[in-house]
C-alpha cells in the first residue's frame, strides 16, 4: 500500500482508520450487490392488445419491478426488476390477472446469436435488393439498345453499385463454398460463388473494353434471390430452435441442497459428490445418488417405461429423472450433471447419431449432381469456343461465364427452403415442430412406425379399471381416504369418485405413510389404502392399490394407463395406409399386451431395455426398412437417434427431445399422421422444384453454349425460374 511505500510523503493521515477502510468497504458492498434481475417469463395465453397492457401494467405496479415489456410474437414478457425479485413473485400476480406464466431459464435462451444472424441476413437482402433495383433500371436502357458511350457509362455505374454489393452481400456463399472446399466437398455454394467471381471479372473486363455484355444485373439478382432462400432456411430453423429452447428453458434445473440442516436452492451444476439433496414429493431426482433418509415411492416411467411406482427406502440407489411421489427423500449425491445417468445416455445417442449423418439431403444430392455438370459444360464451352474462334480468349470466357450464370442456381437454392418454409408453417399450426432440415424428406420414406408405450401412446397417467365393481360403501371409504394424498393412483381414484358423485365418508386421523399408503380411522377403527403387503392383501399382476376395511377384508383397485387422445385413430390411420406399426416398451408383458390389444397392434415387445430398442431399430434398418420412432422416455433416446426419423411429445425428457427430429407440441397424437402425409407432399414439391429448375436449364444451356446468352436472357430465366419454384412451394398443403 502507498502508506508503507512512502512513509514520509505528505499523506493526509487520518486519525481514524475507518475513514480509509470505509470507502473500500463501500466499494466492496457495491460490487457484492448483484446486478438488477432480468427475468423472462413465457405467457402462452397472451394474444391481443389488451393482454399487452394488462400484463405490462400489472407487472409494473409491483414493488421492485422497474419495467416490463411483452413480446407478443414470442409470447414472452421481459422484466427488469430489483435484485431481490424472483420469478415466483411475478408468476402469482400474473395468475390473478388471468395469465398463466412460466419461468424461462435465460441461459438456455441464447436467441441473441440467432437474432444477430437473422438480422445480418435481412440487412444483406435489403442492400442487395436496393442494388438489384438500381442495376436493373440501368440495364433496361442497355437491353433496349443503348450503345457506345451511353452503354459504357451505364455499365460503369452498374459495376460501381454491383461490385461492392457482391463483395458484402455474397459473403455467406463465399464462406460456405470455401469451407466446403477445405473439407474437400463441392457444395451447392461452390458453383454459385464461381459464377459470381467469374461473372464479375468478365463484366469488369468487358466494361473497361466497351464490350456489349456485362452481367452485373444477373449477378446482383442471383445474390438477392439466393439470400432470400438462405433467409427462409434460417427462419424455419430459428423458429424451431427457439421453440425447442423454450421447452428446455421451462425446466430450470435446480435442487434443494441440505447443508448443516439448512435448505438452499442451488443450480444442479453447483452440486458435488457427497452433497445431501432434498427431493420433495412431486419433484424429479436432479442427480444420481443413494437415499439416506425418508421413504416414498418412485415413478420410473420416463427411464424404464414401467407404470407401476416402486418403493423407495434408505439405502436404495436412485437415478436422475425419476419422480418422487409421496414422501420427502434425502439423497446423497453420487453423480451430478455430466456424470449422471442422464448424461451417460447421451453417449448412446451420440453413437446412434453417427449412423444418421450418413443421410444425404435432397439439396446436397442435387448439388452433387449439378455442380460437376455445370462446371463441365462451362469448361467445355470455353474450350470449344476457344478452338472455334481460333484463340479468342475474350469470347470464350464470355460464353463460359454466361453459361455459369444462366444455369440458375438460384432456383435450386430456393427449391428446398421455400418448400420447408411452407410445410413447417403448416405443421407448426398443427402443433408439430420441425427441428432438422432433412426431417421431412426422411419422414417421407417411412414404412415402419415404432411406438413407445408409456408417455407416448398413453398419458403415463393411471385410470381406474374395476372401479364400478366395488360396493358403494367401499367406494365412499376410498373417496374419504384419497383426499389426503397427491400420489397418482390416489389422485386418479379421487377424480373418478368425484366424477361419479360418490360422497366421501368422514375419516379422522388421516395421514399419509410415505412409500406405503394412506391410513385413517373410520368410526375409531383403522382403514388403509396402499401397497399390498402393507394392508395384508394378495398382490395382483397389474397396477393396483389395495383397501383394507376395519373388518380385515381387502379390496383391490386395478388401474390401466390412460390412452393419449388420438392414439387409436392414429394407429388405425397408419395401418390403413399400409404402414407396419410396432409397439416396444420397457413395461411388463401383461401391461403391454393389454394396450396392444386395445389398439389393435399385433406386433409388440415388452421389457425392452434402451439398448434393445436401439437394436430393434437397427435390425429393421438392416432389413431395408425406414423406421419412424415415436417415443418420449430416456429409454427411447438411443432408438430415437438411430431411427430414420423420430418424433417425441413435448412432455418428453429433454434428452429425448434433443434426439428427435420433430417435437409434438399438442397433447393429441393425430397430427403425426398428417405430418407423414405432408412430408410426402413436401418431398414431392422439392423434387418438382428440382425438375422445374432443371427444365429451365435444358432450354437455357444450349442457348448459352451457342453463344446467344445475353444478360437479358440470364435475368429473365433467373427471375422466372425463381418465381415458379416459389409458387410451386406454396402448393404444399
Amino acid at each position, binding site marked *: 500500500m502507498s502508506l508503507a511505500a512512502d512513509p514520509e510523503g505528505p499523506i493526509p493521515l487520518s486519525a481514524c482508520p475507518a475513514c480509509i477502510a470505509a470507502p473500500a468497504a463501500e466499494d466492496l458492498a457495491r460490487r457484492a450487490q448483484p446486478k438488477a434481475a432480468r427475468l423472462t417469463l413465457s405467457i402462452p395465453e397472451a394474444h*391481443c*392488445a*389488451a393482454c*399487452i*397492457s394488462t400484463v*405490462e*401494467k400489472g407487472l409494473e405496479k409491483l414493488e421492485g419491478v422497474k*419495467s416490463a*415489456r*411483452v*413480446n*407478443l*410474437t*414470442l409470447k414472452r414478457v421481459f422484466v427488469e426488476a430489483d435484485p431481490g425479485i424472483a420469478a415466483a413473485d411475478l408468476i402469482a400476480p400474473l395468475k390473478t390477472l388471468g395469465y398463466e406464466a412460466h419461468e424461462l431459464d435465460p441461459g438456455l435462451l441464447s436467441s441473441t446469436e440467432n*437474432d444477430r444472424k437473422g*438480422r445480418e441476413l*435481412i*440487412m444483406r437482402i*435489403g*442492400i442487395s435488393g*436496393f442494388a438489384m*433495383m*438500381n442495376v436493373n*433500371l*440501368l440495364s433496361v436502357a442497355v437491353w433496349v439498345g443503348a450503345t457506345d458511350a*451511353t452503354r459504357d*457509362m451505364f455499365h460503369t*455505374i452498374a459495376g460501381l*453499385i454491383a461490385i461492392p454489393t457482391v463483395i458484402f452481400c455474397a459473403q455467406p456463399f463465399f464462406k460456405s463454398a470455401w469451407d466446403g472446399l477445405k473439407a474437400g466437398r463441392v457444395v451447392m455454394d461452390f458453383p454459385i460463388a464461381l459464377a459470381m467471381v467469374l461473372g464479375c471479372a468478365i463484366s469488369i473486363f468487358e466494361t473497361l473494353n466497351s464490350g456489349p455484355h456485362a452481367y452485373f444485373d444477373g449477378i446482383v439478382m442471383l445474390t438477392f434471390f439466393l439470400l432470400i432462400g438462405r433467409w427462409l432456411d434460417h427462419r424455419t430453423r430459428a423458429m424451431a430452435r427457439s421453440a425447442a429452447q423454450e421447452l428446455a428453458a421451462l425446466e430450470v434445473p435446480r435442487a434443494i441442497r441440505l447443508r448443516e440442516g439448512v435448505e438452499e436452492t442451488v443450480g444442479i451444476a453447483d452440486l458435488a459428490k457427497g452433497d445431501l439433496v432434498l427431493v420433495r414429493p412431486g419433484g424429479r431426482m436432479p442427480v444420481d445418488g443413494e437415499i439416506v433418509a425418508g421413504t416414498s415411492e418412485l415413478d420410473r416411467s420416463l427411464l424404464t417405461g414401467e407404470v407401476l411406482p416402486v418403493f423407495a427406502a434408505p439405502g436404495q440407489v436412485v437415478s436422475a429423472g425419476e419422480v418422487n411421489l409421496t414422501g420427502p427423500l434425502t439423497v446423497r449425491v453420487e453423480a451430478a450433471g455430466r456424470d449422471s445417468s442422464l448424461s451417460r445416455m447421451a453417449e448412446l445417442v451420440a453413437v446412434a447419431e453417427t449412423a444418421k449423418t450418413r443421410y444425404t439431403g435432397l439439396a446436397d444430392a442435387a448439388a452433387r449432381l449439378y455442380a460437376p455438370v455445370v462446371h463441365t459444360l462451362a469448361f467445355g464451352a470455353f474450350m470449344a469456343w476457344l478452338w472455334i474462334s481460333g484463340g479468342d480468349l475474350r469470347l470464350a470466357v464470355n460464353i463460359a461465364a454466361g453459361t455459369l450464370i444462366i444455369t440458375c442456381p438460384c432456383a435450386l437454392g430456393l427449391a428446398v427452403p421455400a418448400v420447408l418454409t411452407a410445410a413447417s408453417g403448416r405443421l407448426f399450426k398443427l402443433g408439430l415442430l420441425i427441428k432438422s432440415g432433412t426431417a421431412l424428406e426422411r419422414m417421407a420414406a417411412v414404412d415402419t412406425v415404432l411406438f413407445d408405450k408409456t408417455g407416448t401412446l398413453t398419458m403415463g397417467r393411471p385410470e381406474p379399471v374395476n372401479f364400478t365393481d366395488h360396493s358403494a360403501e367401499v367406494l365412499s371409504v376410498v373417496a374419504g381416504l384419497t383426499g389426503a394424498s397427491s400420489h397418482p393412483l390416489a389422485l386418479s381414484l379421487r377424480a373418478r369418485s368425484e366424477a361419479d358423485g360418490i360422497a366421501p365418508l368422514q375419516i379422522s386421523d388421516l395421514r399419509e405413510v410415505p412409500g406405503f399408503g394412506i391410513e385413517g380411522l373410520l368410526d375409531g377403527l383403522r382403514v388403509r389404502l396402499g401397497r399390498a403387503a402393507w394392508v395384508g392383501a394378495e398382490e395382483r399382476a397389474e397396477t393396483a392399490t389395495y383397501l383394507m376395511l376395519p373388518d380385515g377384508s381387502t379390496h383391490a383397485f386395478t388401474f390401466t394407463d390412460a390412452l393419449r387422445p388420438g392414439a387409436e385413430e392414429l394407429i388405425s390411420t397408419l395401418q390403413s395406409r399400409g404402414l407396419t406399426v410396432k409397439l416396444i416398451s420397457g413395461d411388463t408383458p401383461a401391461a403391454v399386451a393389454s394396450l396392444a390389444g386395445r389398439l389393435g397392434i399385433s406386433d409388440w415387445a415388452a421389457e425392452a431395455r434402451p439398448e434393445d430398442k436401439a437394436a430393434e431399430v437397427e435390425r429393421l434398418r438392416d432389413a431395408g426398412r425406414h423406421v419412424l420412432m415415436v417415443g418420449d422416455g430416456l429409454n427411447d433416446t438411443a432408438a430415437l437417434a438411430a431411427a430414420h426419423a423420430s418424433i417425441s411429445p413435448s412432455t418428453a425428457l429433454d434428452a429425448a427431445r434433443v434426439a428427435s427430429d420433430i417435437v409434438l407440441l399438442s397433447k393429441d397424437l393425430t397430427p403425426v399422421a398428417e405430418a407423414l402425409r405432408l412430408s410426402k407432399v413436401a418431398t414431392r414439391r422439392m423434387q418438382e422444384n428440382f425438375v422445374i429448375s432443371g427444365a429451365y436449364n435444358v432450354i437455357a444451356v444450349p442457348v448459352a453454349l451457342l453463344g446467344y446468352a445475353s444478360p437479358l436472357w440470364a435475368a429473365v430465366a433467373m427471375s422466372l425460374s425463381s418465381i415458379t419454384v416459389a409458387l410451386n412451394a406454396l402448393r404444399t398443403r
Partner: protein
Amino acid sequence: MEVLTILIPVSLFMGGIGLVAFLWSMKNRQYDDPKGDANRILSPDWDDRPKP
C-alpha cells in the same frame, strides 16, 4: 442525354435514403415483435410518446 447526369444521381440518392431508413429501422429492432407492434397501436397507453 445530359439530363442523365442529374437523374441517375438523384434516383440513386433517393433509393439510398430508402436503404438507410431500412437499415436504421432494423438496427432499432423494429422487426423484433411485429405482432406486438400491430396490437400496441390499438391501445391508448402510450399515445403521447413511445414506451421506453
